[in-house]
């Protein structure tokens, strides 16, 4: 529908064609900030793809090379680190999906005594995260005999208060008529969940999945504490071990390793940046 409201007289229609001062200023500021924000990353990319001699010399004729990546790959067991991280994030994601789905369904659809208190306790995890309870969680993992295992890195995170909350919100929006229809046909709760709720909540799963994978791919402190061997270390810890060696590593090699570890996420982000941003937005709306 076109707006038929007559514009006030002072609003000359011709003004729209010329970009006004306000727009120019805003565009300029947006670009300056974007440039500043991109600079560190572009710089890391520059050093990683050029020989060490060009670390601080910016000439367009500088030869491109993959040597730095080769050197980094050979200097530390990055293949193993990547393998560990992939196993870790997959394990966490699967467990989170199962546990959070069941719990969210219970909160969204069942009436039982204590549900509101329990839900408050779930939300408490948004404030008191496992990240800060490292001392006690280490004791627990040691008592379970799981120190230096990949499972131990994931355990504190698999019952995610955030995931439960997000899925519950989604499940609540699904009309009850749908599950009553299914119930009449004699479907069990589990098949109801599987055939009605989960398919309808797909966008939420995608959003939560992206947030969870990027969070656990990037997690550092807890994996650092609980692992101490090549067989269990994720890439973040591997990278810190690698760059802490006093072997006089060139910056270009360290930057190559840095880009390598964040590479998969960064490439995924550049390819699917719209979905990424929308997923984070969806996960952020409360």
């Amino acid at each position: 529908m076109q707006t038929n409201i007559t514009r006030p007289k002072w609003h000359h229609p011709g003004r729209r064609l010329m970009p006004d001062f306000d727009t120019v200023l805003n565009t300029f500021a947006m670009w300056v900030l974007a440039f500043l924000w991109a600079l560190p990353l572009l710089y890391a990319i520059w050093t990683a793809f050029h020989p060490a001699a060009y670390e601080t010399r910016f000439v367009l004729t500088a030869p491109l090379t993959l040597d730095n990546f080769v050197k980094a790959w050979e200097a530390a067991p990055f293949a193993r680190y990547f393998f560990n991280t992939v196993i870790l994030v997959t394990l966490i994601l699967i467990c989170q999906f199962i546990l959070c789905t069941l719990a969210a369904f219970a909160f969204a659809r069942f009436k039982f005594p204590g549900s509101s208190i329990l839900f408050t306790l779930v939300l408490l995890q948004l404030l008191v995260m496992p990240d800060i309870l490292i001392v006690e969680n280490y004791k627990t993992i040691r008592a379970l005999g799981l120190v230096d295992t990949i499972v131990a890195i994931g355990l504190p995170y698999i019952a995610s208060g955030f995931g439960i909350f997000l899925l519950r919100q989604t499940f609540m929006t699904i009309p009850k008529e749908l599950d009553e229809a299914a119930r009449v046909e004699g479907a069990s709760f589990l098949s109801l969940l599987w055939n009605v709720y989960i398919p309808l909540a797909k966008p939420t799963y995608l959003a939560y999945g992206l947030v969870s994978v990027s969070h656990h791919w990037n997690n550092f402190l807890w994996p650092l504490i609980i692992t101490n061997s090549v067989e269990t270390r994720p890439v973040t810890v591997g990278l810190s071990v690698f760059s802490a060696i006093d072997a006089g590593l060139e910056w270009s090699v360290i930057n190559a390793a840095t880009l390598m570890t964040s590479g998969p996420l960064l490439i995924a982000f550049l390819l699917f940046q719209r979905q990424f941003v929308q997923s984070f937005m969806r996960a952020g709306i409360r």
Partner: protein
Amino acid sequence: MLHRREWVYGWLFLSPALLFLFAFTHYPALNTIISSFFSTPKGRRPAKFIGPENYQTLLQDEVFWKVLENNFWFAVGTIPISVALALAMALWVNSQLKGKTMARVAYFAPTVLPLIAVANIWLFFYTPGFGLIDQLRSGLFGLPAINLLGNPDTVLGAMIVVAIWKEAGFFMIFYLAALQSIPPVLKEAADIEGAGNFYYLRKVVIPLLMPTTLFVSVNAVINSFRLVDHIFVMTEGGPDNASSLLLFYIYETAFQYWQTGYAATLTVVMLLLLSVLAIGQFFLFDRKIHYR
């Protein structure tokens, strides 16, 4: 009958998640408080009850106060700037300006990087004599090399810059979501009334974004306590604890000096601070939010 069944199913569906939630969040949180009244077990000597001794140590621990002060300045330096920048970024990215897609990519990319990688990238910037900052200083202005990370007066500021760079784009997302939920009718009405862009922003948009600002601020506060990865790479807390933060000090106490009893006491302080700040912020913002 049906109610009884729902009751059982509810608990059945909930129990796996609750088991892990209690085991790794609630139990450790409570146990932290108990452990803070016990000594650190050493070898065959088990932990023994020592009352408030750890808390007395805490009050006299200069490093603790230093770290707390650092955390305060780190939060004060990081939060307002990153929230304000996030709002500006969201307004720009949500507008019709040329190149907004590129800008969105640039703003959001640091969010996808591991903090440990971010620290590596910035460490190179800060390297005295060789890093980009010093290259620019000597190349453009002929200034001598400076060691930003080696000087107790500048190290925290250098860390704050890194944190802002990493976080602003993340907070932008929340503002973007909120901006897109503002009905366009409001802008049309403002245009008809002849209200300028800045007036509309100040009187309509920012008040409507207040709940988001609250949410983002609470998150920013939590993050200022939670994110310490960069310290491991850039400074290890130095020089002279000038860049150490509370969680990093907890890590050092527990896993380098193995003083787990005292580390529990430090964690109690962290838990208290988080609760107080969350509650406080809630009440502080409450009045302004009802503006709408």
